[in-house]
Each structure stands twice: as structure tokens, then as C-alpha cells.
């Protein structure tokens, strides 16, 4: 079993365990304000880190390439309040244009 299978199955098992535990534990265990607050911050931290790593690295090397253009266009689209599909599409189109023609 390779890493991709382990990741697929492991992620799925834990995801369900988390969901089911929420339905089964007493409410007071998880309703502490600090837990609620940290829970709101974790996605911000992890997703921002993922944006950066996926935009500017290749394995363990830092790299500037067509993705810089793609992610910049995505930021502009978000600042203009574009909906999610437009954000993703505009990033893809601009990045592909740079990769294919520059």
C-alpha cells in the first residue's frame, strides 16, 4: 500500500471519527470559548500555509514561476469580490498563458 492509499484511508477514517464524536460527546466538553476560538484560527493558519507552499515551492525547493502570476490574479479576483469558480478559473487561465507562451 503506497502513501496515497494510506493518506486516503487514514484521512477518511479520522474525518468520520471526528464527525461522529461530535454527535456523541457531552456538549460541555467542546464548548469552551478557547477551543472555539482556536478552532476558528486553525483553518486560517493551515490554508494560508498551503497557499504559500503550493504557489512557491517544488518539493523542498523554493521556486518562482507561472504560479506567481496565477496566484496574483486570484488575489485581484478576490479583491474584486469574484465568486469562487471565477477566482480559480482566472488563476488557471493566466498561469497557463504564461507557461505556454512566455
Amino acid at each position, binding site marked *: 500500500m503506497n502513501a*496515497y*492509499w*494510506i*493518506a*486516503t*484511508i487514514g*484521512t*477518511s477514517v*479520522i*474525518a*468520520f471519527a*471526528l*464527525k*461522529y464524536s*461530535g*454527535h*456523541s*460527546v457531552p456538549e460541555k*466538553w*467542546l464548548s469552551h470559548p*478557547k477551543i472555539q*476560538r*482556536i*478552532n*476558528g*484560527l*486553525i*483553518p*486560517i*493558519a*493551515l*490554508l*494560508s*500555509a*498551503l*497557499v*504559500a*507552499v*503550493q*504557489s*512557491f*515551492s517544488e*518539493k*523542498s*525547493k*523554493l521556486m518562482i514561476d*507561472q504560479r506567481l502570476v*496565477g*496566484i496574483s490574479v486570484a*488575489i485581484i479576483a*478576490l479583491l474584486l469580490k469574484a465568486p*469562487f*469558480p471565477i*477566482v480559480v478559473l*482566472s*488563476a*488557471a487561465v493566466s*498561469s*497557463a498563458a504564461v*507557461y505556454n507562451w512566455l
Partner: protein
Amino acid sequence: MSKVASATFRDSLSVSLTVGAYGVAFGAAAVANGFTVLQSCLLSLLTFSGASQFAVVGVLGAGGSAISGIATASLLGIRNALYGVIMAPRLKVRGLKRVLAAQITIDESTGVALGQEVRGIDEMRKGFWYTGIGVFIFWNLFTLAGALGAQAMGDIRAFGLDSAVPAAFLGLVWPRLTGNFERALAVGCAVFAIAMTPILPAGLPIIATAFIAIAVGLKK
């Protein structure tokens, strides 16, 4: 169907279709990062939580280990447990129905349910089930479409998929950046992850930012 019920149904359907369509981006991202079409579809069927799914494919795509990928995805899945805590006393279900309710406990089903609060508990329950099942159906269909599409592409960079993936992450985090504190945290974590990438094994720079979030959350 009464007027009130159809309003809940409308809310649920529009959320299901919109969110479900993101599944294309996920399916494509998964294949672009080295997952097979089958693995991509299993993640959508079994994990069924967008941010967690994007995270695990992102970490493995960046060269991270399976453990790093699972850990990152699971940290993002904690919020579903908190949604379960909110929904359980309102749904009051047991046995197999609780298993089904747990599987569809995500941002959208919980959000739509809470949005129906003024219409009463019955409408909250309907909002939860309609939205959860609706998103589940569309998310999985669109994942398959995206995965097959990406598989047919060959060089994903020629189609801009290498940029579509981080743009999708950015689209997920953007609505959460509601104040200066949140924006500073986002920029700080992005810079930290980049700075650590040449130093730490792949995947760890991303998970490490969760501890930054925990530290500042405990302090404030």
C-alpha cells in the same frame, strides 16, 4: 410542500449546487497532485469535508508523507466535531441515522440548519438533511468529473492547474480573513511555511502553522 418548507428546500438546493461545483476543483487538484481517480472519489465519498480533502492532496503533492497529510487534514476536520456538538441536540437521532447525520455534518449543512432557526426546529432539521445530502450528491459527481478531466490533460501546467490548486485554497481561506488579526495570522503563517520549506521535511512547515494558531488562540 408548504411555502416555508420550499424556502428551506431552495436554500439547501442553491448551496448544494454551488458548493458541489467546487468538487470539480477538488477532483482536478487530487489528480494533479498524484492521486488516482479512484482515490480522489473515495476521499469525496468517505472523508467528505472540502478543506480536509484539499489539505491531504496538497500536502502529498508538496512531497509530504502520508502522516503529515493525514494530520493536516484531521486538524481541519476538528471543526466538524464542533458542528456535531451543535447539531446533535437539535437532530436527536440514534443508530444508523446518527451515522448518516455524522457523515454529512460539514460547514454547509450546519450553516443552512442554523440559518433556519427563525423558521423553527423542523425546518432546521430539514435544512440540515437537504443540504447535507444535496452537497454529498453534487460534490461526489463533480469530483469524478474533475478527476477524469485532469487525468485527460497530461501536462497539468499547460492548463494552469498548478495555479488553480493554490487559488482554490486561497478562495477557501479568504472569507475567514475578517479582521486585521486574522489577516496578520494568515500572512505570518504563509511566510513561516515558505521560510521553513527548504529546512523541514515536506509537510511539516504546513502542520507547524497549526501550532502557531493554537499558541495565539490560547494567548489572546
